[in-house]
């Protein structure tokens, strides 16, 4: 069967690609567009390592088909820093040592940023439940939660 021709916007850039019906957005991002910052940990929506924003909504790229994103806006980890300036959450992840191996980090950053776009005053419990769709096996979450809380506090102050 012929591949689908899709036009979308990824990290602000117009892209077009061909994809098979069964290819996921994650397959397209990684294999076709070579944006390998989104990771595949499970391919079943359980680990959050492929978290991306689709039209401003947090989704697992492994649960979205490539041919579903026609005409839509996708934001990935690769679009998070602006020029040489890291997003405050990226900076705080470094300062708090909120990553060990780093494989889950892109997903946590995309998901954490999505939370901060909804509220700059999350409680620890809210942060923990918001991030409950992202698995990290290295850190025990302590420093990740601290980094998110600390970023929110800093952004509140402006």
């Amino acid at each position, binding site marked *: 069967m012929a591949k689908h021709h899709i036009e979308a916007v990824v990290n602000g850039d117009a892209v077009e690609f061909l994809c098979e019906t069964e290819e996921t957005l994650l397959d397209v991002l990684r294999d076709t567009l070579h944006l390998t910052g989104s990771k595949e940990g499970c*391919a*079943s929506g359980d*680990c959050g390592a492929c978290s991306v924003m689709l039209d401003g909504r947090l989704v697992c790229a492994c649960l979205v088909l490539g041919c579903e994103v026609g005409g839509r806006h996708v934001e990935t980890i690769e679009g998070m820093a602006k020029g040489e300036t890291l997003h405050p959450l990226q900076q705080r992840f*470094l300062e708090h040592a909120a990553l060990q*191996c*780093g*494989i889950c980090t*892109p997903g946590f950053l995309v998901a954490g940023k999505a939370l901060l776009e909804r509220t700059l005053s999350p409680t620890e419990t809210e942060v923990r439940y918001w991030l409950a769709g992202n698995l990290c096996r290295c*850190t*025990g979450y302590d420093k990740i939660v601290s980094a998110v809380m600390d970023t929110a506090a800093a952004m509140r102050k402006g």
Partner: protein
Amino acid sequence: MAETMTNGPSQTYVGTRTIRPDGVDKVTGRARFGADFDLPGQLIGRVLRSPHAHARIVSIDVSKAAALPGVKAIVTRDDFADQPSEFIPAGEMMMNYRDVVRNVMAREKALYEGHAVAAVAATSVAIARRALKLIDVTYEVLPHVIDVVEAMQPGAPLLHPDLFTAGVEPKPDQPSNIAKRVEIKQGDIEAGFTKADVIVEREFKTAAVHQGYLEPHAALASVSEDGSTELWCSTQGHFIVRAHCARLLGLDIGKIRVTASEIGGGFGGKTVVYLEPLAIALSRKAKRPVKMVMSREEVFKASGPTSGATVRVKLGATKDGKFVAAFAELKYQAGAFQGSPVQPGTMCAFAPYDIEHVHVIGYDVVSNRPKVAAYRAPGAPISEYAVESVVDEIAKKLDIDPIDLRMQNAAHEGTKAAYGPKFGPIGLEETLNAVKKTEHWNTPLRKWQGRGVASGFWFNIGGETCASLTVNEDGTISLMAGTPDIGGLRASLAAVAADELGVPYDKVQPIIGDTGSLGFNFLTGGSRSAFSGSMAIVEAAKQIKTDLCARACKLWEAEPDQVEFSGGHVKPLGALAEKVKPMSIADFAKVAGKTGGPIGGVGRINAQGAGPSFGTHLVDLEVDPETGRVTILRYTVAQDAGRALHPAYVEGQFQGGAVQGIGWALNEEYIYGPDGKLQNAGFLDYRMPVASDVPMIDAILVEVGNPKHPYGVRGVGETPIVPPLGAIANAMENATGIRFTELPMSPPRVLRALKERSLSGRA
């Protein structure tokens, strides 16, 4: 030449929370992990796996698959030469290539569901998948055995007809699933128990659990026409991968170059090979690069979990709380091939305590499960869970505070461990003191809440290590290590190099070199990489300092005792100081060509003197009597780090290990159906802790310096997973009055126990 003191107070970066040099790449998605590599013209490799737990492989017909357009290579057992049976030390575990070749590709039999039977390389994923369906395997299904105790029974389905229990006299005349019996003995156990006023004896059971690294195994191999082989893979030890692949495929080690990708977690599970030899074998046949990545289901079914086990512990104490005799019998699942971590489990069981009479027996038992791989302090959490549970029960019986009881019996400097050595300076008592002083220990609890404490021990290892420092033309430093950075190694080593050479931290650029760039490195494991790596860096820096001093002597026409290296400079001493100015490393870099050529040092060591690390954990939890769900309310870890090179990443090890232990204690388990198939091979059903399951983990860094290390460092990575199982079980007893002897303490099991108690009228 005089040298700066490495252990003195002048450290600028060691002991501080520097930003990791590889950090920006990891928060921007730039860092390349195992599955992030591609090569032009690459094929996709996929593995056909056994659907049966135990089956003879009568025949494998690949002709239909081979005829499918787009299929470029197929490998089966016929492509891997058999290996002789010999045991080789592999870090904390032993290995036998006879078994490794059979685990990589099933030979006579498929021994577990998911066992690799064939692999294909094709031009697309879809074609590779179709090809797998066209491979015709004829199986003769055999009876299987999953449980370790059942596997030990006479008449149990036999996995290996040539497996005779080692370590027993006389040698058995019948094969069995018991691969090995191990034993440690100290004193006279019978006499010891006669001195006891109180004896507690219990049997415990733990489930097999997976390391649960987020990154599935991945490998990309490219073999050229002359046999030169390049491999990119996610591994804890690329030199070990090279050695295994060379052996399994009959290649010269020098012909293989392995580059370790960034590694997305390993915890011991990426110390062995699965896909790597298959990818090389397929690439060798196809003469094209072959990329292979496991699915999560494959990770669960075909890569190493750690053992489930049955453990019996008997501990005797005098009425004033002195442990006098300790016995344990451990039965560990090895999976389909021998080699469970029962030996370290045996050695660790009573290691935190100073006990005169000790006897521990261990059995290594095969069954139709995936072959176990190392998992963080392999073997220790299981045996120490059982022991810490019994210690708690003794404390309760004698009405002694559980921390005080542990303190009274704690191993300390000079204690002879039952497994052999006499301990040097160790920090168990300090961790107990630290925990007892916390506000946490003294906070009141409510109904259905409980508090538990447990201690833990792990040996740590050193081993072969090679690392280099190169002074670049502008005086910046390139640091190369040969052990994959799994959680902040670059930051730790860069801090050591910066302090040793007296240069700014951000002028040191660390990389992980490939197997062609450095001498042999043992893997990242055994809590060794920061310990051994920093020793190698100290050695490399020493060579540079010696060399620079010699160059200064030539330039200044001075004698060696007229110069010294300090603060990043070679300084003239005495009268010479009036004639010449100190020279910085950058100054030497500028004149390197004129003073002897490139400047650098290579530390090539077999690191000795790894100091054991002890820890004590404190946990509060609450049991929901309606659902059986257990919520961790509060958690404190105190552990001896010797000297924390990077305190934040040391805390991270404590916190991460504690949460892995929480998962092990409360939820994680391999669940098999009667058909011998794994029923929960995914993250939805294999329930690892998520952020909302756990509280903040308070980390207390105890630093009792290791005298065998220039900075006092001890390995810290593994001990943190040892105490949680016991601490949580003890807190469960405190909350409910029920001694849980089976892990995980999952909601159904907790609910059942609460119901049984209420039926028996003891509620």
